[in-house]
């Protein structure tokens, strides 16, 4: 467990180091995640001890959002005056994202299938 956790923390710190070094506008956690992914690619597999630590961290991922989420309590006034507008923004945006992604991918997949069929027919 300690080995796996140390690798994960090392990736996080390296992410922060690269962020500072190149002044990247990307959170350290995302860079750390990409570094760890790259490490798996280079090793052509997941080190079992790292997989074990990662499973432990991800099993209860939900609870980790709670302390920050409770911060909503301090936004009471804002929610009262803008709550409906906020909700509509999220709902409509989610609907549009869902539709556009689904339509674009289905179009591309069907077009590719047609091309493959045509090639097979020749």
């Amino acid at each position, binding site marked *: 467990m300690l080995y796996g956790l140390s690798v994960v923390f090392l990736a996080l710190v390296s992410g922060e180091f690269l962020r500072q070094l190149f002044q990247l506008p990307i959170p350290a956690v995302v860079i750390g995640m990409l570094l760890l992914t790259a490490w798996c690619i280079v090793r052509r597999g997941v080190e079992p001890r790292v997989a074990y630590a990662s499973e432990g961290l991800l099993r*209860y991922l939900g609870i980790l959002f709670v*302390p920050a989420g409770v911060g909503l309590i301090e936004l009471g006034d804002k929610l009262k005056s803008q709550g409906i507008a906020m909700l509509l923004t999220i709902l409509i945006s989610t609907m549009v994202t869902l539709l556009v992604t689904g339509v674009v991918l289905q179009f591309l997949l069907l077009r590719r299938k047609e091309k493959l069929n045509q090639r097979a027919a020749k």
Partner: protein
Amino acid sequence: MNEFLKLAQYPATWIAVTGVVYLLADKLYRLSRYFPLLNPVLVSVLLLIAILKITGVSYATYFAGAKPIHLLLGPATVALAIPLYLNLAKMKQYFIPVSIALLVGASVGIVSVFILGQWFGLSPMTILSFAPKSCTTPIAMALSQEHGGLPALTANAVIVAGIAGAAMAVPLFRLFRIQHEVAQGFALGLASHGVGTARAFQISDTAGAFAGLAMGFNGVVTALILPVLLATWYG
């Protein structure tokens, strides 16, 4: 009452309360057979807000106590690298269509918030907090913090986006004739992260696998294009 106030300052109190509340919320979610509105994070947040209101404890006091839980979010986000890596193999089969859909979907997810938010008269800070709402929560919160949003607002917006997408997806797919299960799953994971992925697994295993793929890569792509889109839109 004095005795209680001393307990409120004791750090372990709020870790214990958060843990117990989350376990109860999770139990409720399972008992309801995963009814989306009973999302355990949402229920825990609302219950804890009620507890703080009733006891009159400030958010600052609560957060100081529950901070160790919050601090685990960083390493947990890095740990998402493992499922991301395991999903890479699936990406190979459909590399070009999936990459295009990913870029288009991630951009639409962000830009639609800019447009709608301005239209509904939301403050720039709220718009910033909502922009990464389709990403998985830890990445969305980190992005919100990085670009000047409010992580608390983001955490809850992400849950709403998850629940909304999971609830609307199947009727929308029927209405717009999106029948390809790869497209269905991918759209769900991209727009509605983990909640959408759980919904996609109810459609089929293939849909679920591509939802997981979309969730992971949308986090990365959003992190990379958000600064560019912000600079173009507000620059």
